C-alpha cells in the first residue's frame, strides 16, 4: 500500500551488509532461530483470511483502492474543524423544518425505534410544545406528521438517541480547510437526560436552561473569542488522558480554559457566568458534543471519492448499526445493533440495557475514541483493566485502519499516530471488528443512562459492504 514505500536502502544493490530485521509469517520455528541469532524478528500472529474473501485492489474501472483511500485519509487528516458559533437547529441545520426530528444512526421509522430513541423523541416533542404529554407525543410521532431523519443526512451528529428538535441550540463547526460545516447539540450531562431516552420536568427544565442561559452565553463568548481549533484541542486532550469518547475530562477543561476570558468579557452577570461554568465543570462529557461534530466535519470531505473503501460513517440508532463508505456515501449498510459489554450504575444491570446506540462512533471513525484507547489509561478498565490492555486495544485497531493520524498521536506509543480510516477490506480480511466505546441507555423510554462500556461493531454490515465493494 502506498503509505509504506520501498525505501531505496532496502533495494538489493544497497541491502548487502545492512543488519537483517525479519518479519516471520508462518512457522514459529523460523522466528525462533532468528531470535537465537540475536537478530530482530517480528512473529506475525497470522491467520488465514475467511473463505471467499479475495484481496481487492482495484475497481472494475481500474481505480486503485489504495490510492483512493490515501486521498480519503489525506482529506480526513487535513480537515481543521473550528467552533465558529452556535445557533438554533431550525435556523442553521440544512433541511431542518419545524416538524423535523433528527435522530442518531441509520434511517428508522417510529415503529422500529428503540425505547430510548422513542423516549427522547417524546421528550423533544413535549419540549417543543407540540404536545403536552409524552403519551400525546407518542401518538403524534406515530401519526406520520413528524419527519424523522438521521442526523447524518443533515451534516449533524447526536450522542446516544441523538435527537435534535428545531428549537434546540447547536454548535456550528466549520472545517476551515474544506469549508463544510457540522452540527451537534450541547451536552446535557449524565443520568436522567434526553439523549439517554429520559423525559419529564427535570429534563425539560435543564433543556430550557440550556437554551435560555447556556446557549446565549456561549454564543456571545464564541463570537468574542473567534474560531476555536478543535483539531488542536482533541490532539491535546489525547495527550491528557482522554480518548474523546468515553472520557472527555481533559477536553472539557481545555474548552473551558479557551472560552474563559471571552466568557468573562461577554457575560456581565456574575451569577449567570458562574452557573454556566458550574454546568460545564459538572459535566465531564461536555466536550463530547464537540469532539463528535469535529469528527463529522473532518470525515465529510472524504465522501464521494470513487474506489475509497474507508468508512466515513459508523452510527447506531439503538435498533440498527449502520456504516457508509467514502466511495459510496449515499448507501447505508446495516445490521442489528449489538449489546454493550458494560459496567453499570448502582441499581442497574445488563438486563436494563438497550442495544448499542448513538452517533458517537463518529469518534472511532475519525481516528480517536475507542481507537485511541492507549491514550486513556484512566479508563482502561473498560477493556480489561491494565494500561497494557488499553495499548493492546489500540494496536489491534491499526490492523484495520488504512493510515495513522498525522495530528492525533499517542504518548504511550511513542507518539505514534492514532489508527484512522477504517478500511472495510481490512476488517473483512482480518475478521477484526472495530472496537467501540459507548454509554448505555435504559431500554425503556423515560429512564436514562444506566452504564457505559465497550463492544465491537457487528460483522454483518461490514460483510455486506465488502460484497458491495466487490462489484465496484
Amino acid at each position: 500500500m502506498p503509505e509504506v514505500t520501498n525505501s531505496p536502502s532496502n533495494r538489493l544493490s544497497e541491502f548487502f551488509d545492512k543488519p537483517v530485521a525479519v518479519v516471520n509469517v508462518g512457522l514459529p520455528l523460523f522466528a525462533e532461530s532468528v531470535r537465537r541469532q540475536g537478530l530482530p524478528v517480528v512473529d506475525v500472529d497470522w491467520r488465514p483470511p475467511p473463505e471467499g474473501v479475495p484481496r481487492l485492489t482495484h475497481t472494475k474501472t481500474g481505480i486503485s483502492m489504495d490510492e483512493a483511500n490515501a486521498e480519503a485519509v489525506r482529506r480526513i487528516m487535513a480537515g481543521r474543524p473550528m467552533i465558529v458559533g452556535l445557533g438554533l437547529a431550525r435556523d442553521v441545520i440544512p433541511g431542518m423544518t419545524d416538524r423535523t426530528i433528527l435522530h442518531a444512526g441509520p434511517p428508522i421509522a417510529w415503529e422500529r425505534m428503540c425505547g430510548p430513541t422513542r423516549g427522547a423523541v417524546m421528550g423533544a416533542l413535549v419540549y417543543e410544545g407540540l404536545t403536552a404529554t409524552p403519551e400525546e407525543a407518542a401518538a403524534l410521532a406515530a401519526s406520520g406528521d413528524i419527519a424523522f431523519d438521521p442526523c447524518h443526512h443533515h451534516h449533524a451528529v447526536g450522542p446516544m438517541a441523538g435527537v435534535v428538535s428545531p428549537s434546540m441550540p447547536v454548535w456550528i463547526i466549520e472545517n476551515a480547510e474544506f469549508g463544510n460545516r457540522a452540527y451537534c447539540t450541547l451536552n446535557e450531562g449524565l443520568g436522567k437526560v434526553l439523549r439517554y431516552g429520559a423525559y419529564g420536568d427535570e429534563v425539560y427544565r435543564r433543556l430550557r436552561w440550556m437554551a435560555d442561559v447556556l446557549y446565549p452565553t456561549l454564543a456571545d463568548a464564541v463570537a468574542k473569542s473567534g474560531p476555536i481549533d478543535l483539531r488542536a484541542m482533541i490532539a491535546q486532550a489525547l495527550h491528557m488522558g482522554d480518548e474523546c469518547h468515553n472520557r472527555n475530562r481533559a477536553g472539557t477543561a481545555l474548552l473551558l480554559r479557551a472560552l474563559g476570558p471571552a466568557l468573562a468579557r461577554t457575560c456581565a452577570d456574575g451569577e449567570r457566568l458562574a452557573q454556566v461554568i458550574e454546568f460545564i465543570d459538572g459535566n465531564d462529557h461536555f466536550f463530547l458534543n464537540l469532539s463528535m461534530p469535529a469528527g463529522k466535519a473532518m470525515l465529510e470531505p472524504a465522501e464521494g471519492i470513487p474506489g475509497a473503501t474507508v468508512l466515513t460513517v459508523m452510527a447506531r440508532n439503538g435498533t440498527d448499526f449502520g456504516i457508509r463508505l467514502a466511495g459510496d456515501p449515499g448507501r447505508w449498510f446495516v445490521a442489528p445493533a449489538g449489546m454493550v459489554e458494560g459496567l453499570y450504575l448502582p441499581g442497574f444491570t445488563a438486563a436494563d440495557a438497550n442495544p448499542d446506540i448513538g452517533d458517537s462512533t463518529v469518534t472511532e471513525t475519525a481516528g480517536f475514541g475507542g481507537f485511541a484507547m492507549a491514550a486513556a489509561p484512566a479508563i482502561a478498565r473498560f477493556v480489561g483493566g491494565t494500561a497494557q490492555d488499553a495499548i493492546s486495544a489500540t494496536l489491534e485497531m491499526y490492523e484495520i485502519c488504512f493510515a495513522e493520524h498525522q495530528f492525533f498521536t499517542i504518548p504511550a506509543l511513542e507518539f505514534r499516530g492514532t489508527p484512522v480510516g477504517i478500511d472495510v477490506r481490512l476488517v473483512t480480511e482480518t475478521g477484526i471488528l472495530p472496537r467501540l466505546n459507548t454509554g448505555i441507555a435504559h431500554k425503556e423510554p423515560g429512564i436514562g443512562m444506566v452504564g457505559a462500556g465497550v463492544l465491537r461493531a457487528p460483522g454483518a454490515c461490514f460483510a455486506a459492504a465488502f460484497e458491495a465493494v466487490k462489484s465496484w
Partner: protein
Amino acid sequence: MAVRYFIKASQYFDSVALMNATRDVQALPGIEDAALVMGTEANKRLLARVAPLTPEAQATSSTDLVMMVKGDGAALDQALAMAEALLTKQPGQTAMAGKRRPRTLRSAVREHPDSNVAVISVAGMYAAAEARSALDRGLHVLLFSDNVSLEDEIALKRRAVEDDLLLMGPGAGTAILNGAALGFANVVPRGPVGIVSAAGTGLQEVSTLLAKQGVGISQGIGVGGRDLSDAVGGMMMLHALEALQADPATTVIVAISKLPSPAVVDKVLARLDAGDKPAVVIFMSAEPVLPSPAGDKVYPAATLHEAALAAATLAHGGDGSTVKAQLADRMRGLQIRAKALAARLSTEQKYVRGLFSGGTLCEEAMRLWGERLGDVWSNAPFKPEFKLPDSNRSRQHCALDLGEEEFTVGRPHPMIDNDLRIRRLLQEARDPHVAVIQMDIVLGYGAHPDPAGELAPAILRAGELAADHGGDLLVVTALTGADGDPQNLARQSAALAAAGALVMGSNADASQLTALIVTVDS
C-alpha cells in the same frame, strides 16, 4: 434480606474502577445487589432507590467512597471485604506479559519499519498474497511455502526484479543474508564466496564444506527449485548473480541448480561470463551438466563437494587447476577404505540403500551411485521406469527422498523429526541383502536439535538386527553442518561414530564410499 453500608472517607476511585468492582461483588453468592460509588448527590439518589441511605451514607460527599451490599446477612461482611480487596488490588504481572503480536504482515512492518526480510511459510494457497504484500512494502522474501502456482511465481519474481528485491522461492528452504541464517541454514563464517542456489540442501552442503575449509560466504541466496526451468527462466538467479557481481564483499560466485533447462543454463553462463569474478557452477541431473565451453571464468563442478573445493581454491587466488588432483587423491583414499570395509560383508549383502532428508543430496547420491552401480530405484528417480511401485518397499540399489510429500503429509519433515527415518532404517536392516545404508544428517537452524542423539541408538539397533541374520551392516553418514551450528557438529559426529557409523565429510564422499564398498572387488 439485609443491607449494609460502609463508608471510606476521602478515598477517591475512578468511577469505572468502581463499576468494575461492583460487578464482581454483585456476582458473589448470597448477594442480591451491591454498589460502590463516590458519594455525589446523583449517586446517593440512585442508591436510595435500591436501599434507604444510612445517616453516615447520607452525609458523604463526592470525595468519599460509599459501599453498599444487599443480600444474606452472612454474605455481607465477605462482600465488603472483597470490595475493598478489589479496589486496592495491584494489576498482575500476567497482564503485562501478554504482549500483542501483529496480526498481519502489513501491521508488523508498520510497527517495525526497519524490517527488511519476510520469511513466509504459510500454506501455499495463501503464500503468494503474503509474498506480494511483503514486496509491496519493499521487503526481500524467503518464500518457504510450497504449492505456489507457476503463474504466481513468475509474477512475483518479475515484480521483485523490477523493484530490485529478492524473491527466494517458492519452496526455498535456505538463505544466509548478511550473515543471518534464515530457514534451514547453518552458522558459517562470513567471507568472500557468494552462493546462489536453486537447491536448498545444495546451498547448505556447499556453505558448510566451505566453512570446513575455513572459507566464509558473503551471501547465500536460495531461489527455489523451479527458478531455472524454462517457464521461470532463471529470473531470480540471474538477478541475484548480478547483485553478487556488483557486491564488493563477494570475490567468488557459486551457482547451484538441479535439473536446469539448458536454455537457462546458457543464460546463467552468459551472465557469469559477462562479469569479472571467477565462478563455480554445479548443475545436477542424471548426468552432470558440464557446460562447454564454460568460459575462462567458470569452473564446472560435478559434485557439491567439488564445487566447494573449487570455490575455496578460487577464493584463495588459485585458478581451479589443482582441484581435479585433490579429488583424485580423495578417491584413492576412499577406495582403500572401501576395500577394507567390503571385507566385512557376507556374500549375501550386495545392495545399497539411501535414506535421505535432503532432496538435492539424494539426487547427488543417485547420480554418483549410478556411475558405479547402474540404475538406482527411488521414489524420486531420474528415469520414470525406476520409480518404486511402493515407496514403502525398497528394491535392489535404492535411494529414498524422505522429504517428498508422500512421506511428509501429516508429519514433520525428516530434517525436523527422525521417527520416519529410524523406522525405515530398522526395516532396511532386516533385509539380509542390504550391505550399506547411507544417510544425510543436516544440522543448523531449523533442523532437529539433536539428530545423532536419536539416530545413534537406532544405528546400534540396526546393527543388531543385521547381526541376527549373520550380516555386518555398514552405515555411512554425511553430516551437513558447521562448527557454529546449535547442534554442535563435533558432538554429533562423535555420537554417530560411537554407534559404529562411518562419518564422512561430504555427501559426495559418503556416496562414493557407499558405491565403492559394493563394487570394489568386482
